[in-house]
């Protein structure tokens, strides 16, 4: 989003992107959310470099360090800032690696669903007629069922696995984008600039790709931000229920689930801290999304 084109740097030229950035920075809460998000994403990306321990490397784990409360140290003086789980795994490292899985699932399923929804929605808007009706009926039917139910059905069918969770979450989400793109494209294609482009006898694909598409993006970006948070929550929920990611690639939801039984005996940290990590991630995405919606909403623009 900070990738401003070099042209935009010229003074007094107010590009939409620049206006967007300025208006976005208007809200302190949103900036805080964005900063947190950048921190979270980068710590997930660089988890192998910053994590005190490789939680997957079983040879590094010592069962003697099992269930250490937060802040305690082992015999070699290594401090477990967030405590350890029953296998002596450092919880902070587990959370950093778990974030990778959670974010991977959240972002990739959203990206694929966005691409599918974009294509399908554009086709529906541009083709019109019975194809449009058929696509939108399918979208309506799918959206009348809650996402978690559809995801559960798909995972009951597909089985466990990171790739399968991504497939299920993509299938759950595409309909939102298709609907959003279609309604945006229907509004935009009646506008004068499209008519002007048509008068210039520009090829149809150029009109769609260069004129229509960029103008349909703002509402889509808003939906996508909120959906990333949804996808991450949904993945955590599915993994908690035991139908999501496998034990070998634990996500935050998985970590929370495995700490659940210890919670009842007072060893709260095993599932409290992954839960907090999940919460902060989702809240920061939602804060960014809320501000984007306000900035990009044409009805609120002055």
């Amino acid at each position, binding site marked *: 989003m900070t990738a401003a084109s070099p042209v935009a740097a010229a003074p007094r030229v107010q590009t939409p992107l620049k206006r967007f950035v300025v208006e976005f920075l208007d809200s302190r809460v949103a900036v805080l959310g964005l900063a947190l998000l950048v921190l979270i994403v980068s710590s997930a990306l660089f988890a192998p470099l910053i994590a005190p321990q490789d939680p997957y490397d079983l040879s590094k784990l010592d069962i003697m360090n099992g269930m250490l409360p937060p802040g305690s140290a082992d015999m070699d003086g290594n401090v477990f800032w967030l405590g350890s789980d029953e296998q002596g795994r450092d919880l902070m490292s587990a959370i950093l690696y778990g974030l990778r899985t959670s974010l991977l699932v959240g972002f990739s399923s959203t990206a694929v669903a966005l691409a599918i929804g974009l294509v399908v929605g554009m086709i529906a808007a541009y083709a019109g007629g019975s194809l449009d009706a058929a696509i939108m*009926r399918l979208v309506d*039917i799918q959206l*009348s*069922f*809650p996402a*978690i*139910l559809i995801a*559960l*059905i*798909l*995972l*009951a*069918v*597909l*089985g466990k696995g990171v790739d399968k969770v991504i497939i299920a979450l993509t299938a759950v989400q595409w309909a939102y984008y298709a609907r959003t793109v279609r309604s945006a494209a229907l509004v935009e294609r009646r506008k004068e600039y499209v008519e002007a482009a048509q008068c210039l006898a520009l090829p149809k694909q150029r009109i769609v790709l260069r004129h229509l598409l960029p103008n349909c993006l703002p509402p889509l970006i808003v939906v996508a931000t909120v959906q990333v*948070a949804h996808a991450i*929550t949904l993945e*955590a*929920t599915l993994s*908690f*229920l*035991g*139908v999501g990611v496998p034990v070998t690639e634990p996500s935050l*939801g998985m970590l*929370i*689930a495995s700490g*659940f039984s210890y*919670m*009842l005996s*007072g060893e*709260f940290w095993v*599932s409290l801290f992954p*839960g907090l990590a*999940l*919460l902060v991630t*989702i*809240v920061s995405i*939602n*804060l960014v999304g*809320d501000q984007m919606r306000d900035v990009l909403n044409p009805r609120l623009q002055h």
Partner: protein
Amino acid sequence: MLVFLIRRIAQSAIVVAIMSVLVFTGIFAIGNPIDVLISPEADEAERAAAIARLGLDLPMHEQFLAFARNALAGDLGISFVHGVPAVQLVLERFPATLELALLAMTIAVLTGIPLGVWAGLRPDSKAGKIIMAGSILGFSLPTFWVGMLLIMAFAVSLGWLPASGRGETVEVLGVPFSFLTANGLKHMILPALNLALFKVSLVIRLARAGTREVALQDYVRFARAKGLSPARIVGVHILKNIMIPVVTVLGLEFGSVIAFSVVTETVFAWPGMGKLLIDSILLLDRPVVVAYLLVTVLLFIVINLVVDLLYSLLDPRIRLGGAKA
């Protein structure tokens, strides 16, 4: 209206058919229930007998045809694990889920509407902002994690409320319900709160947005000019007009409460349909999974239809699709 109904019912039938094919082929193609259901110590003869009894030796399409024929007669097979008809098993668990969902919806309405109206009347006040921040938090918190925190706070640390099960039940017309006994109600509080959390946030948002819009209308200004008390303006003029979107969304969300009870029931070991589904998925008890899904899909179709019809009754401006002529 009639055209609309016929079209919707036809559409629903297609949805049910597609779902059943999808669920059946998917579930029956993946995983091998023989390994799970038949004891490894069983000898060849026992295995063969069990496979024949469960119908697992037939080709896939024959299994499906038999399944479809029986499904139309309301028979979705016998649970591999429990040995009773799958539909019966799901329907037996339904009252527990239903009462939990209804209590959650009641909590959502009783807390969400007053908070939302309050925030809508004074959007810039401190209380209004706190309420909105709370609703954003309510949207962000994962249901299962909140459930665990509730258990940790009220069951483990304070020891006020029980953390699992249904407690004592009373039979009404042969169906057990928990909300009629003090002990059962105590068991319901935490799961219902947990299930309600997301809906409270939703109702707050709807009520707030509605109130902000309605409060600026001429008829509200007129009512104020007439000298009506603020309580009457809010209670009659505003509340009545924000109810249409709230009722519609709640109607549609009722289905999602039932779907989300899968999570809450798992956390609180509440013996409803949702917990049954998860247990059955993990045990590869295919008839029960299929029965749950088909029962839920049917439930959804009925709920959506009823909400659409109610919507047109509540707001005469809405014309149902299909009446184009």
